[in-house]
């Protein structure tokens, strides 16, 4: 049988929405879909799969790459090898996919965001989306893929028949890597997800001493200051101010991005804003692809000019 094995991403009882992209890619490839998921009260559209394999294990056991290779082995037993094994490009898929590829000796392409089915090629981003690499899928499969969130979800198609359900009764859980607990982010007074107007600064801000000048600008504009990951990594702004997949998802009326290149982990956190304005000195910055308005300029000069104008 020619099938795609979709490895579900579930976390704290939720069947993550980005699994739709895994279904979408598999549908585009025209494969039968076997979904593997922990057995639990997850709600999702079961019609998207031909077969659902439910694993009698807790989600923390399932999400552990050391256990997942055993689970995948069991799914393949009797069924034969799939044509591809599809993961989300997220904290869990990015961890498990390479480990699965290494274990079974399979080719792996991560962060797949487009395909050309007729030519049998996958596209993945290089250099923060400035260039795409094209991969021909001619090698020995199955191919291990992680799929960029938002890329294929519209192609997820319901099947004519209800999915067959099968069970995997148990997994030998590894004791070499064990989940202990979840750690929540600290709560802070300023909640950037509630702001109507965000002024967001990226690595282009240059250095820490510039931050107060942007706080000032934000103050004058009655905007809230947020940032991309490098600004938070360097501790120039506190973690709850981070926009992006590993930070907050925001949807303000206006998102004004200054000195942010537009990596997909950032875009995913702000793309649904009503109006996105990007200021960047690089005309080729990917953020201009997602923005409604763009300015090619030195952000510091724009800051100074805006301040002058707002003062008078």
């Amino acid at each position, binding site marked *: 049988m020619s099938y795609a094995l979709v490895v579900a991403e579930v*976390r704290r009882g939720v069947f993550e929405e980005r699994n739709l992209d895994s279904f979408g890619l598999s549908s585009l490839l025209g494969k039968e879909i076997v979904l593997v998921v922990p057995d639990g009260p997850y709600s999702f559209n079961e019609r998207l799969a031909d077969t659902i394999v439910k694993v009698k294990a807790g989600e923390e056991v399932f999400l552990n*790459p*050391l256990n997942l290779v055993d689970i995948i082995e069991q799914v393949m037993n009797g069924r034969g090898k799939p044509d591809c094994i599809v993961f989300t490009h997220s*904290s869990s898929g*990015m*961890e*498990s*996919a*390479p*480990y*699965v*590829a*290494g274990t079974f000796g*399979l080719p792996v*392409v*991560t962060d797949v965001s*487009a395909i050309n089915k007729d030519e049998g090629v996958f596209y993945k*981003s*290089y*250099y*923060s989306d400035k*260039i*795409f*690499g*094209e*991969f021909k899928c001619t*090698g020995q499969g199955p191919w291990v893929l992680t799929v960029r969130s938002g890329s294929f979800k519209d192609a997820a198609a319901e099947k004519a028949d209800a999915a067959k359900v099968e069970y995997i009764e148990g997994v030998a859980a590894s*004791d*070499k*890597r*064990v989940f*202990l*607990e979840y*750690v*929540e*982010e600290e709560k802070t007074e300023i909640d950037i997800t509630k702001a109507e*107007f965000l002024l967001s600064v990226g690595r282009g801000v240059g250095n820490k001493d510039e931050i107060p000048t942007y706080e000032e600008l934000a103050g004058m*504009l009655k905007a809230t200051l947020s940032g991309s*990951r*490098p600004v*938070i990594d360097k*501790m120039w702004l506190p*973690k709850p101010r981070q926009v992006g*997949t*590993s*930070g907050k998802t925001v949807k*303000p009326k206006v998102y004004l991005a200054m000195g942010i290149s537009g990596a997909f982990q950032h875009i995913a956190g702000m793309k649904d804003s009503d*109006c*996105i*304005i*990007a200021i960047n000195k*690089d005309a080729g910055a990917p953020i*201009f*692809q*997602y923005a409604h*308005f*763009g*300015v090619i300029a030195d952000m510091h000069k*724009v800051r100074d000019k805006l301040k002058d104008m*707002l003062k008078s």
Partner: protein
Amino acid sequence: MNIVTFTKRVPVTQEEELRITGDGAAVDLSKLPFKVNDWDNYAVEEAVRIVEKVGGSVTAVAMGDAESDEVLRRAIAMGAKDGFLVRIARAIQDPFARAALISNFIKNENVPFDVIFTGVQSEDDQFGSVGGILAALLKLPYSSMVIGIDKVESDHMVIRRELEGGLQERVRISLPCILSIQSGINEPRYVSIMGIRKASKVERKVFQGNAYEAGVGAMIDTVKWVYPPRKKGAMMLSGELDEVCKNLVGILKEKGVYQ
């Protein structure tokens, strides 16, 4: 604690227009400056901090051309004891082939380690895969996106992994193991030119990569470079800065976020 930490030399592309040459055969990187992969910088710092606390040593490993020596000197300036350069004639695109070669190198040369660190991903290829494949090949436990190391014991560590939306998970992992280090785990120390110059007095060992090619076949056959598909794109505000800023404020007023 012996920590091997991988460090890769990557081009600085953020402010550059990248050109594809030879009908998709190559990306022209010839005029670009190079630097250490951001994620690897955090990994080296974390390794050095652990060793400063519990003892042991840090070995930095780079795979690449002779120029990659630069990131090894940098790691030594940060506190690594030594640096190994695995020389390869040209960059290996396939992360599987890269990990397989590294795995052979570690086994053949008996490189001692309790923990191997990689960065979460390379800035240039963004595969995020070498650490995970290497762990599977060496049959070691693995965790990616490590954003905190809370406890270091002789036979295990307690770490925190970063998940989405600010959530983390705490995990106990046995040693030896492989961890991929996420940016922001620490504040990497400043490295001065003087420090790097001093580090060049420490001998770096050079190994010839082709000695470790047994069984290392690329799994990904053809690579062609293309420009990403264009979306609708932004409406660009151009003109004098004065005019641009007036337009900006106009948009803010129209959207009702500024009076």
